[in-house]
């Protein structure tokens, strides 16, 4: 039985707090191992969740979140816009999530300040995502109706 990301949040936060700079990188630059994986120093590991995937390396982490939104194209588009909007304010939210996921969170060892914001996102936004999407759908429907109303007025 797989855990959900929210249920394992404390473990994820512990991993994020434990990220460290990789010394003696063969490329001799401080780049995120999670995108490189060129050597064994990356210490790559994964945790599969019911609603996502956590990719762990020594200096960086990538958390992919899968939301159950069904097959509606509008919901998918709304989620994409939501991810874009969050990424403009939160540096750890990736503008384009990894394929098959709705949100991708990237943490480098220098991003320790972002951990409380991430915790807030998981605690506050995630449980309300259904309501947020409904609000978005209502707004789009109202916009469409207003266009039609303007046409007939």
């Amino acid at each position, binding site marked *: 039985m797989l855990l959900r990301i929210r249920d394992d949040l404390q473990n994820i936060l512990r991993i994020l707090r434990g990220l460290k700079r990789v010394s*003696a990188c*063969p490329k001799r630059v401080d780049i995120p191992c999670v995108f490189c*994986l*060129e*050597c*064994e*120093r*990356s210490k*790559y*590991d*994964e945790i*599969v969740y019911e609603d996502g*995937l956590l*990719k762990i390396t020594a200096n960086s982490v990538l958390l992919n979140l899968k939301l159950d939104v069904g097959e509606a194209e509008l919901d998918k588009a709304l989620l994409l816009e939501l991810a874009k909007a969050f990424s403009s304010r939160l540096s750890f939210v990736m503008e384009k999530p990894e394929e098959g996921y709705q949100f991708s969170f990237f943490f480098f060892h220098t991003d320790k300040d972002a951990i409380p914001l991430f915790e807030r996102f998981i605690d506050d936004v995630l449980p309300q995502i259904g309501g947020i999407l409904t609000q978005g759908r209502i707004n789009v429907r109202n916009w469409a109706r207003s266009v039609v109303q303007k046409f007939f007025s």
Partner: protein
Amino acid sequence: MARKGRRRRKVEYTKNDFEKDLVSRIKSDFLKKFQVLDERYTVDRGRLLKAAIEPILDTLSLDFDRRELRRAIAMPAVIIYRKMQPHPRPVCFIFAEFHFKKALLTNANNASCLLKKLFPGAYAAYVALDRNPEGIRKKEFKNLDILVCGSGFEECWIKLHEFLSQNVFSSE
């Protein structure tokens, strides 16, 4: 006389070295050993594949997602081709990684699914140099013909050598 004040940096074995080792062993154990194989096959790290696919990208059916295809082309570490005109035809895609983990295997499986659609009959092999591999079942990855995992290069090479000699180069 030994030079003072000069420390020798420990050379790290990277994925790049792993890929180069695979190419050189395929050349030395197959292509250079048997002339008939050398005449019919060639091996590289993906340069010829890009050259072969780029011109046909615009003529492919719309079933192929161009973005996914570009990503898939970049994934195999080593490719064995059958020499043909005007372009060589890939016969085996080898994915080389340092980790034997589910997400990486899934990516390789998806890439080989696309590549096998483009080149039917081609084989796909996943080779990992991992000391602590994850317990993964082969049947989850139907597009990968063999999953090889070992703690050292030689251990991986023995298994891959057997696969290549029994499948890819068996007809010669």
